[in-house]
Protein backbone atom coordinates (compact mmCIF):
# COMPACT_ATOMS: atom_id res chain seq x y z
CA UNK A 1 0.00 0.00 0.00
CA UNK A 2 1.52 3.28 -1.11
CA UNK A 3 1.71 5.91 1.58
CA UNK A 4 0.52 8.55 -0.86
CA UNK A 5 -2.73 6.70 -1.62
CA UNK A 6 -5.77 7.53 0.49
CA UNK A 7 -9.31 6.19 0.79
CA UNK A 8 -11.80 8.98 1.51
CA UNK A 9 -15.22 8.26 3.01
CA UNK A 10 -17.91 10.77 2.05
CA UNK A 11 -21.40 10.96 3.52
CA UNK A 12 -24.32 10.47 1.19
CA UNK A 13 -27.14 12.98 1.51
CA UNK A 14 -27.02 16.71 1.95
CA UNK A 15 -23.28 17.00 2.73
CA UNK A 16 -22.16 15.14 -0.37
CA UNK A 17 -22.42 17.98 -2.86
CA UNK A 18 -20.35 20.42 -0.77
CA UNK A 19 -17.84 17.68 0.03
CA UNK A 20 -17.29 16.93 -3.66
CA UNK A 21 -17.01 20.62 -4.40
CA UNK A 22 -14.18 21.23 -1.93
CA UNK A 23 -12.35 18.10 -3.01
CA UNK A 24 -12.52 19.21 -6.65
CA UNK A 25 -11.15 22.60 -5.62
CA UNK A 26 -8.07 20.98 -4.12
CA UNK A 27 -7.37 19.01 -7.25
CA UNK A 28 -9.21 15.73 -6.74
CA UNK A 29 -11.39 15.33 -9.83
CA UNK A 30 -14.64 13.92 -8.50
CA UNK A 31 -17.11 14.99 -11.19
CA UNK A 32 -18.05 11.34 -11.76
CA UNK A 33 -18.77 10.68 -8.11
CA UNK A 34 -22.47 10.81 -7.34
CA UNK A 35 -25.08 9.03 -5.31
CA UNK A 36 -27.31 8.49 -8.32
CA UNK A 37 -24.87 6.14 -10.01
CA UNK A 38 -25.52 3.60 -7.23
CA UNK A 39 -21.84 2.84 -7.20
CA UNK A 40 -20.34 2.86 -3.71
CA UNK A 41 -16.64 2.86 -4.60
CA UNK A 42 -15.03 5.33 -6.98
CA UNK A 43 -11.37 4.69 -7.77
CA UNK A 44 -9.51 7.82 -8.93
CA UNK A 45 -6.07 6.33 -9.61
CA UNK A 46 -4.62 9.47 -11.17
CA UNK A 47 -5.28 11.47 -8.03
CA UNK A 48 -4.12 8.50 -5.87
CA UNK A 49 -7.50 8.50 -4.22
CA UNK A 50 -10.41 6.13 -3.75
CA UNK A 51 -13.72 7.59 -2.69
CA UNK A 52 -16.32 5.56 -0.89
CA UNK A 53 -19.85 6.73 -0.13
CA UNK A 54 -21.50 5.71 3.14
CA UNK A 55 -24.30 6.69 5.47
CA UNK A 56 -23.25 9.79 7.42
CA UNK A 57 -23.53 7.99 10.76
CA UNK A 58 -21.25 5.18 9.51
CA UNK A 59 -18.36 7.45 8.50
CA UNK A 60 -16.66 7.50 11.95
CA UNK A 61 -16.77 3.69 12.03
CA UNK A 62 -15.16 3.29 8.60
CA UNK A 63 -12.45 5.72 9.64
CA UNK A 64 -11.92 4.32 13.15
CA UNK A 65 -11.20 0.86 11.79
CA UNK A 66 -8.97 2.24 9.05
CA UNK A 67 -11.23 0.98 6.23
CA UNK A 68 -11.12 4.62 5.12
CA UNK A 69 -8.04 6.75 5.86
CA UNK A 70 -10.02 9.96 6.03
CA UNK A 71 -13.64 11.06 6.06
CA UNK A 72 -15.97 14.04 5.95
CA UNK A 73 -18.53 13.98 8.73
CA UNK A 74 -20.76 16.32 10.74
CA UNK A 75 -19.58 17.28 14.21
CA UNK A 76 -23.02 16.21 15.44
CA UNK A 77 -22.28 12.60 14.46
CA UNK A 78 -18.78 12.79 15.95
CA UNK A 79 -20.10 14.08 19.26
CA UNK A 80 -22.70 11.36 19.48
CA UNK A 81 -20.38 8.50 18.60
CA UNK A 82 -17.21 9.50 20.43
CA UNK A 83 -15.05 7.32 18.17
CA UNK A 84 -11.28 7.21 18.31
CA UNK A 85 -10.46 9.32 15.24
CA UNK A 86 -8.32 12.39 14.62
CA UNK A 87 -10.31 15.57 13.98
CA UNK A 88 -8.15 17.71 11.72
CA UNK A 89 -10.16 20.51 10.15
CA UNK A 90 -13.47 22.35 10.31
CA UNK A 91 -14.72 22.46 6.73
CA UNK A 92 -17.35 25.05 7.61
CA UNK A 93 -20.27 23.77 5.57
CA UNK A 94 -23.27 21.77 6.77
CA UNK A 95 -23.99 24.16 9.62
CA UNK A 96 -26.63 23.12 12.12
CA UNK A 97 -27.40 23.52 15.82
CA UNK A 98 -28.44 21.14 18.55
CA UNK A 99 -31.51 22.39 20.42
CA UNK A 100 -33.92 21.24 23.08
CA UNK A 101 -37.47 21.74 21.83
CA UNK A 102 -40.97 20.92 23.02
CA UNK A 103 -44.63 21.65 22.23
CA UNK A 104 -45.65 25.28 22.75
CA UNK A 105 -48.26 24.46 25.37
CA UNK A 106 -45.78 22.61 27.59
CA UNK A 107 -42.79 24.97 27.69
CA UNK A 108 -41.43 25.65 31.18
CA UNK A 109 -41.70 29.06 32.82
CA UNK A 110 -39.07 31.71 32.16
CA UNK A 111 -36.32 32.78 34.54
CA UNK A 112 -35.64 36.48 35.25
CA UNK A 113 -32.86 36.44 32.60
CA UNK A 114 -35.37 35.46 29.92
CA UNK A 115 -34.25 31.84 29.46
CA UNK A 116 -36.48 28.90 30.15
CA UNK A 117 -36.25 27.18 33.53
CA UNK A 118 -35.05 23.78 32.38
CA UNK A 119 -35.17 22.38 35.92
CA UNK A 120 -38.92 21.94 35.46
CA UNK A 121 -38.10 19.29 32.86
CA UNK A 122 -36.33 16.95 35.30
CA UNK A 123 -37.02 13.23 34.86
CA UNK A 124 -38.92 13.76 31.63
CA UNK A 125 -38.42 11.77 28.46
CA UNK A 126 -36.31 13.13 25.60
CA UNK A 127 -36.72 11.71 22.11
CA UNK A 128 -33.53 12.07 20.07
CA UNK A 129 -31.13 10.63 17.55
CA UNK A 130 -28.38 11.78 19.89
CA UNK A 131 -28.93 10.19 23.34
CA UNK A 132 -25.30 10.68 24.35
CA UNK A 133 -25.22 14.37 23.47
CA UNK A 134 -28.58 14.86 25.17
CA UNK A 135 -27.58 13.06 28.34
CA UNK A 136 -24.30 14.98 28.58
CA UNK A 137 -26.07 18.31 28.13
CA UNK A 138 -28.67 17.64 30.82
CA UNK A 139 -26.08 16.21 33.23
CA UNK A 140 -24.15 19.46 32.86
CA UNK A 141 -27.31 21.33 33.83
CA UNK A 142 -27.52 19.19 36.95
CA UNK A 143 -30.54 17.39 35.56
CA UNK A 144 -31.60 13.81 34.92
CA UNK A 145 -33.75 12.84 31.96
CA UNK A 146 -34.66 9.63 30.13
CA UNK A 147 -33.34 9.68 26.56
CA UNK A 148 -35.27 7.63 24.02
CA UNK A 149 -33.26 6.78 20.93
CA UNK A 150 -35.09 7.21 17.61
CA UNK A 151 -33.72 7.05 14.08
CA UNK A 152 -35.82 9.73 12.36
CA UNK A 153 -38.89 12.01 12.51
CA UNK A 154 -38.02 13.02 16.02
CA UNK A 155 -40.64 15.82 15.93
CA UNK A 156 -43.36 13.20 15.99
CA UNK A 157 -42.48 11.92 19.48
CA UNK A 158 -43.88 14.77 21.64
CA UNK A 159 -46.99 15.04 19.49
CA UNK A 160 -48.05 11.48 20.23
CA UNK A 161 -46.85 11.39 23.84
CA UNK A 162 -43.74 9.23 23.36
CA UNK A 163 -41.64 11.95 24.98
CA UNK A 164 -42.14 15.38 26.55
CA UNK A 165 -39.33 17.01 24.58
CA UNK A 166 -36.78 16.40 21.85
CA UNK A 167 -33.09 17.03 21.30
CA UNK A 168 -32.40 17.44 17.61
CA UNK A 169 -30.34 19.35 15.08
CA UNK A 170 -31.95 22.23 13.24
CA UNK A 171 -30.60 24.39 10.46
CA UNK A 172 -33.42 26.88 9.79
CA UNK A 173 -36.00 25.91 12.43
CA UNK A 174 -38.70 25.35 9.84
CA UNK A 175 -39.39 21.74 10.80
CA UNK A 176 -39.81 22.77 14.44
CA UNK A 177 -42.36 25.46 13.51
CA UNK A 178 -44.29 23.11 11.25
CA UNK A 179 -44.65 20.72 14.16
CA UNK A 180 -45.56 23.46 16.65
CA UNK A 181 -42.40 22.92 18.64
CA UNK A 182 -40.56 25.70 20.46
CA UNK A 183 -36.83 25.84 21.09
CA UNK A 184 -36.35 26.02 24.87
CA UNK A 185 -32.53 25.83 24.99
CA UNK A 186 -29.70 26.07 22.51
CA UNK A 187 -27.02 23.40 23.02
CA UNK A 188 -24.15 23.18 20.54
CA UNK A 189 -23.30 24.08 16.97
CA UNK A 190 -22.07 21.67 14.34
CA UNK A 191 -20.33 21.84 10.98
CA UNK A 192 -18.64 19.26 8.76
CA UNK A 193 -15.24 18.03 9.92
CA UNK A 194 -12.30 16.42 8.16
CA UNK A 195 -11.31 13.36 10.18
CA UNK A 196 -8.53 10.79 9.83
CA UNK A 197 -7.76 7.35 11.14
CA UNK A 198 -5.13 7.64 13.87
CA UNK A 199 -2.75 5.19 12.20
CA UNK A 200 -3.27 6.63 8.70
CA UNK A 201 -2.57 10.09 10.10
CA UNK A 202 0.86 8.84 11.25
CA UNK A 203 1.72 6.54 8.35
CA UNK A 204 0.39 8.78 5.58
CA UNK A 205 1.20 12.04 7.32
CA UNK A 206 2.65 13.88 4.29
CA UNK A 207 -0.34 13.13 2.05
CA UNK A 208 -3.01 13.82 4.66
CA UNK A 209 -1.34 16.95 5.95
CA UNK A 210 -0.97 18.24 2.40
CA UNK A 211 -4.69 17.73 1.86
CA UNK A 212 -5.53 19.49 5.12
CA UNK A 213 -3.41 22.51 4.19
CA UNK A 214 -4.91 22.74 0.71
CA UNK A 215 -8.41 22.46 2.10
CA UNK A 216 -7.66 25.06 4.75
CA UNK A 217 -6.54 27.49 2.08
CA UNK A 218 -9.48 26.85 -0.22
CA UNK A 219 -12.06 27.51 2.53
Amino acid sequence: MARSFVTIALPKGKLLEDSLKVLTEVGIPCQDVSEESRKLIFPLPEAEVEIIICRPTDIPTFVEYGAADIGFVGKDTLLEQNKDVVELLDLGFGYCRFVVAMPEEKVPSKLPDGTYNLQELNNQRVATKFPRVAEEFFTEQGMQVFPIKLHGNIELAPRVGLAEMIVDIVSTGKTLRQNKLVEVAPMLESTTRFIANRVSYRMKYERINDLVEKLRQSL
Partner: protein
Amino acid sequence: MKRTSLGLKTPGGMKDLLPEELMALEQGEEKILSLFQNWAYQKVLTPTLEYGACIQPLEEEENPFLKLFDRQGHVLILRPELTTPIARMVNTRMRSSVFPLRLCYGADVFRYSPSYGHEFRQLGVELIGSPSPVADAEVIALAVEALQEVGREDFQISLGHMGIFTGFMNELNLTKEFRGKYEEMLGRKDYVGIERLVRGENFESKVEETLLKFPHLHGKEEMLQEVLTLSEEPSIKNAVESLRQVYSYLQDFGVQEYVSLDLGILRGFSYYTGVVFEGYVPGVGFPVVEGGRYDALYEEFGDDHPATGFAINLKALVEQTPVSEVISADVLVYGDDLGKVIQEGQKLRQGGQRVEISLEPMTASEAEKLAEEKGIQRIQQV
Protein backbone atom coordinates in the same frame (compact mmCIF):
# COMPACT_ATOMS: atom_id res chain seq x y z
CA MET B 1 -30.35 -31.23 29.70
CA LYS B 2 -30.10 -29.15 26.53
CA ARG B 3 -28.31 -25.84 26.92
CA THR B 4 -30.35 -22.66 26.49
CA SER B 5 -29.46 -20.29 23.67
CA LEU B 6 -27.33 -18.29 26.13
CA GLY B 7 -25.41 -21.43 26.98
CA LEU B 8 -24.38 -21.81 23.33
CA LYS B 9 -22.81 -18.34 23.13
CA THR B 10 -19.61 -16.86 24.52
CA PRO B 11 -19.86 -13.66 26.61
CA GLY B 12 -19.59 -10.37 24.69
CA GLY B 13 -16.08 -9.68 23.41
CA MET B 14 -14.88 -13.24 24.19
CA LYS B 15 -13.84 -15.53 21.35
CA ASP B 16 -12.95 -19.16 20.79
CA LEU B 17 -9.75 -19.90 18.94
CA LEU B 18 -9.97 -22.77 16.45
CA PRO B 19 -6.86 -24.75 15.47
CA GLU B 20 -5.92 -22.53 12.48
CA GLU B 21 -6.43 -19.29 14.42
CA LEU B 22 -4.51 -20.54 17.43
CA MET B 23 -1.68 -21.82 15.26
CA ALA B 24 -1.19 -18.41 13.65
CA LEU B 25 -1.05 -16.78 17.07
CA GLU B 26 1.26 -19.39 18.53
CA GLN B 27 3.68 -19.30 15.62
CA GLY B 28 3.91 -15.53 15.97
CA GLU B 29 4.28 -15.79 19.73
CA GLU B 30 7.00 -18.40 19.52
CA LYS B 31 9.05 -16.34 17.08
CA ILE B 32 8.71 -13.12 19.04
CA LEU B 33 9.31 -14.63 22.48
CA SER B 34 12.39 -16.47 21.31
CA LEU B 35 13.64 -13.16 19.88
CA PHE B 36 13.04 -11.53 23.29
CA GLN B 37 14.98 -14.34 24.92
CA ASN B 38 17.85 -13.84 22.47
CA TRP B 39 18.06 -10.31 23.79
CA ALA B 40 18.36 -11.75 27.33
CA TYR B 41 14.79 -11.07 28.45
CA GLN B 42 13.51 -13.72 30.87
CA LYS B 43 9.94 -14.86 30.60
CA VAL B 44 7.62 -14.33 33.56
CA LEU B 45 3.91 -14.56 34.18
CA THR B 46 1.73 -12.73 36.68
CA PRO B 47 -1.71 -13.99 37.75
CA THR B 48 -4.84 -13.43 35.70
CA LEU B 49 -6.46 -11.63 38.64
CA GLU B 50 -5.00 -8.72 40.59
CA TYR B 51 -6.45 -6.63 43.37
CA GLY B 52 -8.03 -3.40 42.21
CA ALA B 53 -5.66 -1.71 44.64
CA CYS B 54 -2.70 -2.85 42.49
CA ILE B 55 -4.03 -1.95 39.06
CA GLN B 56 -5.97 1.15 39.91
CA PRO B 57 -5.24 2.98 43.18
CA LEU B 58 -7.75 5.75 42.51
CA GLU B 59 -11.16 4.99 41.12
CA GLU B 60 -11.56 6.89 37.87
CA GLU B 61 -14.85 7.85 36.33
CA GLU B 62 -14.70 5.41 33.49
CA ASN B 63 -12.28 2.59 32.90
CA PRO B 64 -12.09 -0.40 30.60
CA PHE B 65 -11.41 -3.01 33.29
CA LEU B 66 -13.21 -6.32 33.80
CA LYS B 67 -13.87 -6.58 37.53
CA LEU B 68 -15.26 -8.98 40.07
CA PHE B 69 -15.31 -9.39 43.86
CA ASP B 70 -13.53 -11.99 45.95
CA ARG B 71 -15.14 -13.64 48.98
CA GLN B 72 -13.97 -10.87 51.28
CA GLY B 73 -15.49 -8.23 49.06
CA HIS B 74 -12.21 -6.92 47.56
CA VAL B 75 -12.37 -5.66 44.01
CA LEU B 76 -10.44 -7.93 41.65
CA ILE B 77 -9.43 -6.89 38.14
CA LEU B 78 -8.60 -9.21 35.26
CA ARG B 79 -5.14 -7.95 34.28
CA PRO B 80 -5.60 -5.22 31.65
CA GLU B 81 -1.83 -5.15 30.97
CA LEU B 82 1.30 -6.58 32.57
CA THR B 83 3.54 -3.57 33.21
CA THR B 84 1.85 -2.72 36.52
CA PRO B 85 1.59 -6.32 37.80
CA ILE B 86 5.26 -6.87 36.90
CA ALA B 87 6.17 -3.74 38.87
CA ARG B 88 4.31 -5.21 41.85
CA MET B 89 6.02 -8.56 41.38
CA VAL B 90 9.53 -7.16 40.98
CA ASN B 91 9.19 -4.86 43.96
CA THR B 92 7.84 -7.57 46.25
CA ARG B 93 9.23 -10.92 45.11
CA MET B 94 12.33 -10.01 43.09
CA ARG B 95 13.88 -7.25 45.16
CA SER B 96 17.24 -8.99 45.38
CA SER B 97 17.58 -9.21 41.58
CA VAL B 98 20.57 -7.77 39.81
CA PHE B 99 19.50 -4.67 37.92
CA PRO B 100 19.06 -3.77 35.13
CA LEU B 101 16.53 -6.55 34.95
CA ARG B 102 15.11 -7.71 31.61
CA LEU B 103 11.73 -9.47 31.71
CA CYS B 104 9.32 -10.51 28.98
CA TYR B 105 5.89 -12.10 28.79
CA GLY B 106 3.16 -13.44 26.56
CA ALA B 107 -0.24 -13.33 28.21
CA ASP B 108 -3.91 -12.65 27.66
CA VAL B 109 -5.09 -9.26 28.86
CA PHE B 110 -8.65 -8.11 29.44
CA ARG B 111 -10.27 -4.78 28.64
CA TYR B 112 -13.65 -3.63 27.45
CA SER B 113 -12.51 -2.68 23.98
CA PRO B 114 -14.89 -2.35 21.06
CA SER B 115 -12.30 -2.78 18.34
CA TYR B 116 -10.41 -5.93 19.27
CA GLY B 117 -12.45 -7.92 21.74
CA HIS B 118 -12.31 -7.93 25.53
CA GLU B 119 -9.57 -10.56 25.73
CA PHE B 120 -6.44 -10.43 23.61
CA ARG B 121 -2.88 -11.66 23.65
CA GLN B 122 -0.09 -9.25 24.53
CA LEU B 123 3.63 -9.91 24.14
CA GLY B 124 5.92 -7.45 25.83
CA VAL B 125 9.18 -6.61 27.52
CA GLU B 126 10.17 -4.54 30.55
CA LEU B 127 13.71 -3.26 31.04
CA ILE B 128 13.88 -2.26 34.70
CA GLY B 129 16.54 -0.30 36.56
CA SER B 130 18.19 1.83 33.88
CA PRO B 131 17.58 5.50 33.05
CA SER B 132 19.89 5.26 30.02
CA PRO B 133 18.71 6.27 26.54
CA VAL B 134 20.38 3.06 25.36
CA ALA B 135 17.71 1.17 27.32
CA ASP B 136 14.97 3.05 25.45
CA ALA B 137 16.70 2.47 22.13
CA GLU B 138 17.09 -1.22 22.97
CA VAL B 139 13.38 -1.78 23.56
CA ILE B 140 12.43 0.21 20.44
CA ALA B 141 14.91 -1.79 18.36
CA LEU B 142 13.48 -4.97 19.83
CA ALA B 143 9.96 -3.85 18.86
CA VAL B 144 11.16 -3.26 15.29
CA GLU B 145 12.79 -6.68 15.13
CA ALA B 146 9.67 -8.32 16.59
CA LEU B 147 7.58 -6.88 13.74
CA GLN B 148 10.17 -8.07 11.23
CA GLU B 149 10.22 -11.48 12.88
CA VAL B 150 6.58 -12.08 11.90
CA GLY B 151 7.22 -10.99 8.34
CA ARG B 152 6.19 -7.36 8.53
CA GLU B 153 8.07 -4.91 6.36
CA ASP B 154 5.89 -1.89 5.76
CA PHE B 155 5.49 -0.73 9.33
CA GLN B 156 6.30 2.45 11.20
CA ILE B 157 7.27 3.33 14.74
CA SER B 158 6.39 6.86 15.87
CA LEU B 159 8.46 8.17 18.74
CA GLY B 160 7.65 11.07 21.05
CA HIS B 161 8.54 12.28 24.53
CA MET B 162 6.23 13.09 27.42
CA GLY B 163 8.79 15.47 28.94
CA ILE B 164 8.58 17.87 26.01
CA PHE B 165 4.83 18.13 26.44
CA THR B 166 4.93 18.58 30.22
CA GLY B 167 7.80 21.05 29.80
CA PHE B 168 5.74 23.21 27.48
CA MET B 169 2.71 23.01 29.71
CA ASN B 170 4.73 24.18 32.72
CA GLU B 171 6.67 26.84 30.85
CA LEU B 172 3.66 28.47 29.25
CA ASN B 173 2.20 29.08 32.68
CA LEU B 174 -1.30 28.08 31.69
CA THR B 175 -4.29 28.05 33.99
CA LYS B 176 -5.27 24.69 35.38
CA GLU B 177 -8.59 24.93 33.61
CA PHE B 178 -7.06 25.65 30.19
CA ARG B 179 -4.48 22.92 30.63
CA GLY B 180 -7.17 20.40 31.56
CA LYS B 181 -9.19 21.19 28.44
CA TYR B 182 -6.13 21.22 26.19
CA GLU B 183 -4.93 17.84 27.47
CA GLU B 184 -8.38 16.37 27.17
CA MET B 185 -8.70 17.49 23.54
CA LEU B 186 -5.19 16.35 22.76
CA GLY B 187 -6.09 12.96 24.20
CA ARG B 188 -9.18 12.79 21.97
CA LYS B 189 -7.11 14.10 19.03
CA ASP B 190 -9.67 16.87 18.53
CA TYR B 191 -7.33 19.30 16.77
CA VAL B 192 -10.20 21.48 15.59
CA GLY B 193 -11.25 21.90 19.22
CA ILE B 194 -7.66 22.75 20.18
CA GLU B 195 -7.43 25.41 17.50
CA ARG B 196 -10.66 27.00 18.76
CA LEU B 197 -9.65 26.77 22.38
CA VAL B 198 -6.24 28.33 21.78
CA ARG B 199 -7.46 31.10 19.48
CA GLY B 200 -10.20 31.97 21.95
CA GLU B 201 -7.69 32.80 24.69
CA ASN B 202 -5.79 35.90 23.57
CA PHE B 203 -2.34 34.42 24.13
CA GLU B 204 0.71 36.27 22.91
CA SER B 205 1.62 35.04 19.47
CA LYS B 206 4.52 32.81 20.47
CA VAL B 207 2.48 30.92 23.05
CA GLU B 208 -0.35 30.57 20.58
CA GLU B 209 1.99 29.25 17.92
CA THR B 210 3.50 26.70 20.30
CA LEU B 211 0.14 25.42 21.48
CA LEU B 212 -1.17 25.13 17.92
CA LYS B 213 1.94 23.53 16.52
CA PHE B 214 2.57 21.05 19.28
CA PRO B 215 0.17 18.27 18.23
CA HIS B 216 1.59 18.31 14.70
CA LEU B 217 5.34 18.40 15.39
CA HIS B 218 6.48 15.55 13.24
CA GLY B 219 9.44 14.47 11.16
CA LYS B 220 13.04 13.36 11.42
CA GLU B 221 15.82 14.80 13.53
CA GLU B 222 15.58 18.36 12.18
CA MET B 223 12.17 18.67 13.83
CA LEU B 224 13.87 18.67 17.23
CA GLN B 225 15.73 21.81 16.20
CA GLU B 226 12.37 23.44 15.59
CA VAL B 227 11.26 22.49 19.09
CA LEU B 228 14.30 24.22 20.54
CA THR B 229 13.39 27.43 18.72
CA LEU B 230 10.00 27.33 20.43
CA SER B 231 11.46 27.18 23.93
CA GLU B 232 14.51 27.76 26.09
CA GLU B 233 13.09 25.92 29.08
CA PRO B 234 15.77 23.57 30.55
CA SER B 235 13.39 20.65 31.09
CA ILE B 236 12.40 20.80 27.42
CA LYS B 237 16.03 21.00 26.34
CA ASN B 238 16.78 17.92 28.45
CA ALA B 239 13.86 16.02 27.00
CA VAL B 240 14.85 16.98 23.45
CA GLU B 241 18.41 15.92 24.17
CA SER B 242 17.31 12.55 25.54
CA LEU B 243 15.05 12.00 22.53
CA ARG B 244 17.94 12.89 20.23
CA GLN B 245 20.19 10.38 21.98
CA VAL B 246 17.61 7.60 21.77
CA TYR B 247 17.12 8.37 18.10
CA SER B 248 20.85 8.32 17.47
CA TYR B 249 21.34 4.95 19.24
CA LEU B 250 18.58 3.59 17.02
CA GLN B 251 21.00 4.09 14.16
CA ASP B 252 23.54 1.91 15.97
CA PHE B 253 20.88 -0.74 16.38
CA GLY B 254 20.26 -0.45 12.63
CA VAL B 255 16.55 0.34 12.93
CA GLN B 256 16.41 4.13 12.62
CA GLU B 257 14.82 4.03 9.17
CA TYR B 258 11.62 2.59 10.69
CA VAL B 259 11.24 5.33 13.27
CA SER B 260 9.69 8.80 12.86
CA LEU B 261 9.65 11.44 15.52
CA ASP B 262 6.20 12.64 16.41
CA LEU B 263 5.51 14.77 19.47
CA GLY B 264 1.76 14.27 19.11
CA ILE B 265 2.24 10.72 20.48
CA LEU B 266 1.12 11.06 24.08
CA ARG B 267 0.18 7.72 25.43
CA GLY B 268 -3.00 8.61 27.26
CA PHE B 269 -1.37 10.57 30.11
CA SER B 270 -0.96 7.34 32.02
CA TYR B 271 2.24 6.16 33.69
CA TYR B 272 4.63 7.26 30.94
CA THR B 273 7.23 9.87 31.86
CA GLY B 274 9.86 9.87 29.10
CA VAL B 275 10.01 8.61 25.52
CA VAL B 276 6.76 7.10 24.26
CA PHE B 277 6.21 5.18 21.05
CA GLU B 278 3.58 3.47 18.95
CA GLY B 279 3.95 0.94 16.14
CA TYR B 280 1.65 0.87 13.14
CA VAL B 281 1.10 -1.65 10.36
CA PRO B 282 -1.01 -0.97 7.27
CA GLY B 283 -4.56 -2.28 7.46
CA VAL B 284 -4.85 -2.15 11.25
CA GLY B 285 -6.62 1.01 12.39
CA PHE B 286 -4.98 1.24 15.83
CA PRO B 287 -1.40 0.87 17.09
CA VAL B 288 -0.17 -2.73 17.34
CA VAL B 289 2.78 -1.72 19.54
CA GLU B 290 2.57 0.66 22.50
CA GLY B 291 5.40 1.51 24.83
CA GLY B 292 7.65 3.98 26.50
CA ARG B 293 9.56 4.99 29.61
CA TYR B 294 7.79 5.02 32.97
CA ASP B 295 10.09 6.18 35.73
CA ALA B 296 7.51 6.88 38.43
CA LEU B 297 5.60 3.59 38.58
CA TYR B 298 8.03 1.44 40.58
CA GLU B 299 8.20 3.90 43.43
CA GLU B 300 4.46 3.41 43.98
CA PHE B 301 5.29 -0.22 44.82
CA GLY B 302 8.28 0.54 47.09
CA ASP B 303 11.73 0.62 45.53
CA ASP B 304 12.29 3.32 42.97
CA HIS B 305 13.45 2.02 39.58
CA PRO B 306 13.45 3.77 36.23
CA ALA B 307 11.98 1.46 33.59
CA THR B 308 11.05 1.21 29.94
CA GLY B 309 9.21 -1.33 27.80
CA PHE B 310 6.47 -2.07 25.32
CA ALA B 311 3.62 -4.45 24.51
CA ILE B 312 2.53 -5.88 21.18
CA ASN B 313 -1.09 -6.71 20.39
CA LEU B 314 -0.37 -10.12 18.89
CA LYS B 315 -3.81 -10.77 17.45
CA ALA B 316 -3.94 -7.50 15.53
CA LEU B 317 -0.45 -8.17 14.24
CA VAL B 318 -0.93 -11.70 12.93
CA GLU B 319 -4.59 -11.39 11.97
CA GLN B 320 -3.83 -10.63 8.35
CA THR B 321 -1.05 -13.14 7.86
CA PRO B 322 -2.29 -16.05 5.75
CA VAL B 323 -2.65 -19.23 7.72
CA SER B 324 -1.17 -22.44 6.44
CA GLU B 325 -3.40 -25.48 6.69
CA VAL B 326 -3.27 -27.16 10.04
CA ILE B 327 -2.22 -30.79 9.72
CA SER B 328 -2.73 -32.79 12.85
CA ALA B 329 -0.64 -35.88 12.07
CA ASP B 330 2.16 -37.22 9.86
CA VAL B 331 0.88 -40.76 9.82
CA LEU B 332 -2.33 -42.71 10.42
CA VAL B 333 -1.81 -46.18 11.91
CA TYR B 334 -4.62 -48.69 11.44
CA GLY B 335 -5.33 -52.42 11.40
CA ASP B 336 -7.56 -55.14 12.79
CA ASP B 337 -5.58 -55.78 15.96
CA LEU B 338 -6.03 -52.60 17.97
CA GLY B 339 -3.41 -53.64 20.50
CA LYS B 340 -0.80 -53.76 17.77
CA VAL B 341 -2.04 -50.47 16.37
CA ILE B 342 -1.43 -48.87 19.78
CA GLN B 343 2.05 -50.38 20.09
CA GLU B 344 3.08 -49.28 16.58
CA GLY B 345 1.71 -45.81 17.29
CA GLN B 346 3.78 -45.54 20.47
CA LYS B 347 6.90 -46.69 18.63
CA LEU B 348 6.49 -44.12 15.87
CA ARG B 349 5.77 -41.33 18.39
CA GLN B 350 9.00 -42.14 20.18
CA GLY B 351 10.68 -41.66 16.82
CA GLY B 352 9.35 -38.10 16.78
CA GLN B 353 6.40 -38.48 14.42
CA ARG B 354 2.93 -37.06 14.95
CA VAL B 355 0.76 -40.15 14.97
CA GLU B 356 -2.98 -40.67 14.80
CA ILE B 357 -4.22 -44.19 15.53
CA SER B 358 -7.48 -45.72 14.40
CA LEU B 359 -9.79 -46.25 17.35
CA GLU B 360 -11.67 -49.09 15.69
CA PRO B 361 -10.64 -51.82 13.23
CA MET B 362 -10.37 -50.25 9.80
CA THR B 363 -9.84 -51.46 6.22
CA ALA B 364 -7.18 -50.03 3.92
CA SER B 365 -9.71 -48.11 1.85
CA GLU B 366 -11.35 -46.62 4.95
CA ALA B 367 -7.95 -45.57 6.24
CA GLU B 368 -7.04 -43.99 2.89
CA LYS B 369 -10.25 -42.03 2.85
CA LEU B 370 -9.83 -40.78 6.41
CA ALA B 371 -6.21 -39.81 5.79
CA GLU B 372 -7.16 -37.88 2.70
CA GLU B 373 -9.95 -36.00 4.48
CA LYS B 374 -7.64 -35.09 7.32
CA GLY B 375 -4.69 -34.21 5.11
CA ILE B 376 -2.49 -36.98 6.64
CA GLN B 377 0.27 -37.82 4.19
CA ARG B 378 0.98 -41.40 5.13
CA ILE B 379 -0.97 -44.44 6.33
CA GLN B 380 0.51 -47.53 7.91
CA GLN B 381 -1.12 -50.90 8.38
CA VAL B 382 -0.18 -53.29 11.16
